């Protein structure tokens, strides 16, 4: 192979690599981040101001949010020009695992061996692990959310006062900011 051919081949492969990099950069649509920012903000504040409403709130908001997220993700992907049922299934199974896991966590509460506050803390920890894994395998933007949720878990089990509200605001702002950054045109290419 001549030097010119090698140079041309190198440039062509760089071109392909750049296209792949652009493809990797796209992730969840902004609307999903905004949805969960709202759900988390309300759900966490409720723990401090009206704790008796929390179980019913999350019993409805979590599965409803899951379904709405799936629809938003599907529509967002099609709108962005991507059709991939396999990828959609991966996302769905990932979050379904978190939803089902949280459901299993309720069992010891009904058996009387786990308190509701501790259930809430463990649910945050499960969310932290889920977001972190999503950041590793699906969308890098979720890594920071995972880390913040882990910090939130430590805060709610060690600190007193309106900790849940503070953690909720921090997570909601992080989700909202991630959604804002995801929605920018440069983020979609």
């Amino acid at each position, binding site marked *: 192979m001549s030097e010119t051919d090698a140079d041309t*081949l190198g*440039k062509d492969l760089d071109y*392909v690599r750049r*296209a792949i990099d652009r*493809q990797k950069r796209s992730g969840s649509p902004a609307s999903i981040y905004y949805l969960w920012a709202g759900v988390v903000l309300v759900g966490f504040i409720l723990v401090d101001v009206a704790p008796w409403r929390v179980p019913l709130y999350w019993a409805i908001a979590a599965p409803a949010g899951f379904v709405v997220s799936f629809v938003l993700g599907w529509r967002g992907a099609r709108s962005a020009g*991507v059709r*991939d049922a396999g*990828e959609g299934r991966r996302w769905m199974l990932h979050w379904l695992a978190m939803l089902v896991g949280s459901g299993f966590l309720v069992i010891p509460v009904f058996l009387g061996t786990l308190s509701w506050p501790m259930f809430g803390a463990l649910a945050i920890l499960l969310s932290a692990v889920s977001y972190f894994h999503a950041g590793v395998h699906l969308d890098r933007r979720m890594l920071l959310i995972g880390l913040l949720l882990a910090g939130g878990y430590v805060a709610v089990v060690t600190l007193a006062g309106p900790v849940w509200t503070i953690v909720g605001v921090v997570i909601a702002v992080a989700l909202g900011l991630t959604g804002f950054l995801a929605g920018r045109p440069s983020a*979609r290419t």
Partner: protein
Amino acid sequence: MPGRKKRPASSATPGLEELDKLLEHRVRLAACVLLARQEALSFSRLKQLLDETDGSLGANLRRLEEAGYLTVEKEFVERKPVSWYSLTPEGRKALRRHVAGLTRLLDS
């Protein structure tokens, strides 16, 4: 095998005979690589990812379609016409052969 353009087997450089003439063009190669990673991409999405003009991309995708490497499906998304491109099994095989050839070429 439609579209497959083979090189003479007597080539001295390893990997050269496995290269597909159609995929030697970087736009066509990149389009196939992107479509190997996802089930289907729209024309607009491919244009965004490849940073090409409508004319250039359209011509290259048409050649791949004529060779049997891509299929096109047209539908309406949010009331706008969209063309969805997918790699065929023939296209995947051609891409695998071409990448194997490139790997051997670069290793030699």
